[in-house]
């Protein structure tokens, strides 16, 4: 992990950067990595069950759907947008798969329909925020509520079973035998690499950082700020829908209310990962580390038999601590 992180700054490196700049690009991610390792060390000491390949892989597998949503949310927030509807999209995506399947449609086509629907919802968010110039917080709060409600209306609030071996493999399958790497983890990592590549190496990526860093200057330079943001809303919708498909495959059922409650974890991971809510700054690797930290915390505390109520308290405290430290770091550089 540490190897990959080293080549992934938001402003990727030309060799022989002076030391203080290396610090600038890396300090945030390095801090998260240190935090993660400390967490792993603590749980290793406290629980004999923690540091096993199986347990670590299960953390990755359980966090994959959150990681997916956060992977798309990171560039969107960096570009100056925000998508609160992403978890609701994941919820309705499972419902769409179940309904299509129940209507006799092939399960893979059903997945495709669900993912396209997610993209369409994202396009709608983008059109409202950038076309009508409405505040993204309010727009996506509204669409979140509409989509959540629609999922419940469509299903009557009931869970729809989806026990189809080929399909369930996406959620609970493993590559390389029973002790192998979980499929959701692989899907998530592929998405992270794609996002990193697009953000660090393509002109589109440059537009993401510029649009969020200074939208007015970007417009004055002829950068397509609105198009960039709309595309990212679409990406967020697609990622949400994919996350929903994975959750449905994992549970073997589409539960309309299964993902919505994880929205705060998604946003928390993005912020914890060092992305500025005001745009312009952040990286997907920071987000990935933050997802791992939140997942590890959850897993470790469960192994120690800490009640899930206390887990929420811990999660919030960690978020405040990390964001506070990050602010101190950024201010000390300014």
């Amino acid at each position: 992990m540490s190897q990959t992180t080293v080549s992934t700054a938001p402003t990727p490196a030309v060799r022989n950067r002076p030391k203080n700049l290396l610090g600038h690009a890396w300090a945030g991610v390095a801090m998260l990595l240190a935090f993660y390792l400390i967490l792993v060390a603590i749980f290793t000491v406290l629980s004999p069950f923690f540091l096993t390949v199986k347990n670590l892989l299960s953390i990755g597998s359980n966090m994959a759907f959150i990681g997916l949503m956060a992977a798309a949310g990171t560039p969107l927030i960096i570009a100056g947008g925000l998508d609160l509807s992403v978890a609701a999209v994941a919820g309705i995506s499972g419902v769409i798969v179940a309904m299509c399947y129940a209507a006799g449609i092939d399960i893979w086509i059903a997945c495709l329909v669900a993912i396209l629907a997610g993209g369409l919802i994202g396009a709608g968010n983008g059109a409202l925020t950038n076309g009508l110039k409405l505040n993204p917080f309010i727009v996506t709060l509204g669409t979140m509520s509409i989509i959540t409600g629609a999922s419940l209306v469509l299903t009557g609030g009931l869970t729809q079973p989806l026990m189809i071996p080929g399909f369930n493999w996406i959620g609970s399958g493993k590559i390389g035998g029973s002790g192998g790497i979980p499929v959701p983890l692989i899907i998530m990592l592929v998405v992270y690499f794609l996002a990193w590549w697009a953000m660090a190496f393509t002109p589109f990526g440059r537009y993401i950082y510029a649009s969020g860093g200074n939208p007015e200057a970007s417009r004055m330079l002829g950068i397509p700020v609105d198009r960039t943001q709309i595309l990212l809303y679409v990406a967020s919708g697609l990622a949400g829908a994919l996350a929903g498909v994975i959750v449905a495959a994992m549970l073997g059922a589409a539960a309309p209310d299964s993902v919505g409650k994880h929205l705060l974890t998604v946003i928390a991971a993005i912020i914890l990962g060092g992305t500025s809510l005001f745009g312009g700054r952040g990286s997907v690797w920071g987000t990935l580390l933050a997802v791992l930290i939140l997942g590890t915390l959850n897993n470790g505390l469960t192994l120690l038999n800490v009640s899930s109520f206390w887990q929420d308290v811990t999660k919030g405290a960690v978020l405040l601590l990390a964001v506070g430290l990050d602010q101190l770091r950024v201010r000390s550089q300014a």
Partner: protein
Amino acid sequence: MANNRILDMNGIGKAFGGVPVLADVHFHLDAGEVVALLGANGAGKSTLMKILSGNYSRDAGTIAVNGRDHDLKSPADALALGIRMLPQELSVFPDLTVAENIMIGALPKNGMHVDRRAMEVRATALLERMGLDGLSPRTRMGALSHHVQRIVEIARAMNGEARVLIMDEPTASLAADEVQMLFGIIRRLRADGISIIYISHYLKEVFAVSGRIAVLRDGRNAGDFTTANTNVDEVLHAIIGNRVGDLYPAFSANAASAADVVRVEGLSVEGWLRGVDFTVRGGSITGVHGLIGSGVEMIGRALFGAAPRTRVRRVEIDGKPYQVSTPGKAVEAGLGLVAAERKREGIVAMLSLRENMSLANMPLFTKGVSVDRKKEATTTAEWIRRLSIRARNAEQPIGTLSGGNQQKVCLARWLLGDLKVLILEEPTRGVDVGARQEIYRQIRQLADGGLGILLISSDAEEVAGLADRSIALASGRVTEVFEQPTEASALMSAASKSAAAA
């Protein structure tokens, strides 16, 4: 004489980061006197007034109010001494009442509650002093027209023991009859013994309203005139002085014979420009001068497609019709714009020099689907050398560079692509003299290389020193066209035809 001297500032000095902006400045004010404080941009007027209002500390000198020395450590100190400042921009609370707006700094209390009656009684008295007898103190501020809000703002400044009122460009957004109304109020206040410091670029207004004119140039006193015994030429000369010519490069020899690259007819921006015509020629610099509020702020960005509510009759680029739409389309058509508000509209502070350099020309730096960072790095390094940009290297975040060096990047980024016309808005605002000379030299070199340059500046000297031909704007219209290089004083008098005259 001496016993009605209300303010005496002596030997005032101030430096920012080692650069002196005020040196041994004297300024005094008698009771009931209206003094105009004049000077070019950067002459030190605002700094002097910020020292007087307690917003800046001074490095040297003394300030005596009513014959006693005072320290003026904070705005509260200045307020307590009766020194009030009317900000350039309206600063009111549109959803509060007129009375609340007037009394907001000193609300009368009745126990824990605001004493509404006392508040309204006192507000009414202040409104009467302004001649606004009929205005109910319970009116919502936002329901009033702009100039009435302005007068309410003056009433607010008069609350308490006001002695000195500083007015910074008070007529910038007022119509001719509203200016007359303001002058009426100034006369009333003067009769009440209030002293007024009146800062303005509009010389006609200055001559109409002031009793004395004090001029600053390059942070020093440059003249003190009794208004009745002087004239516009004398004052203009004091403002401009005999500047050394070597700040500016030589003019183009063949500007007159050059062909038009851009031809604009009937450019209008609602509230700013009313049917402006101009052309930009290849290989030369076309200057546009106007005071703040004259539309000079909008003319470049309107052509660039970055001003809201723009209408235009006809634009031609290289003889072909061009439809003004968005900055993206303007860039495709070969226009570039260096914005006046560099921090807000010019740079992405947290990105590196290299990334800022390529932003407007990403296609040039794209290989296949990914960014060609090597090319970015070599190009940036080359421009750092050519423009002697002071930076550690190309990876330094641009926000950490000085203003002049940021501006060089903003200039250089347009020279990478296939540019026909470069629009420069206030290219040396907030730039120190050393970097200024370098920037002027570069602008001239670009023009010599065949580029058409539209130089937009509220600094008449800059336009006079650099432009091969120029136009002057006032109140959204072209007031004069100069086909040859011209004097700063000619540009200034063409641009200071006040709203009343235009």
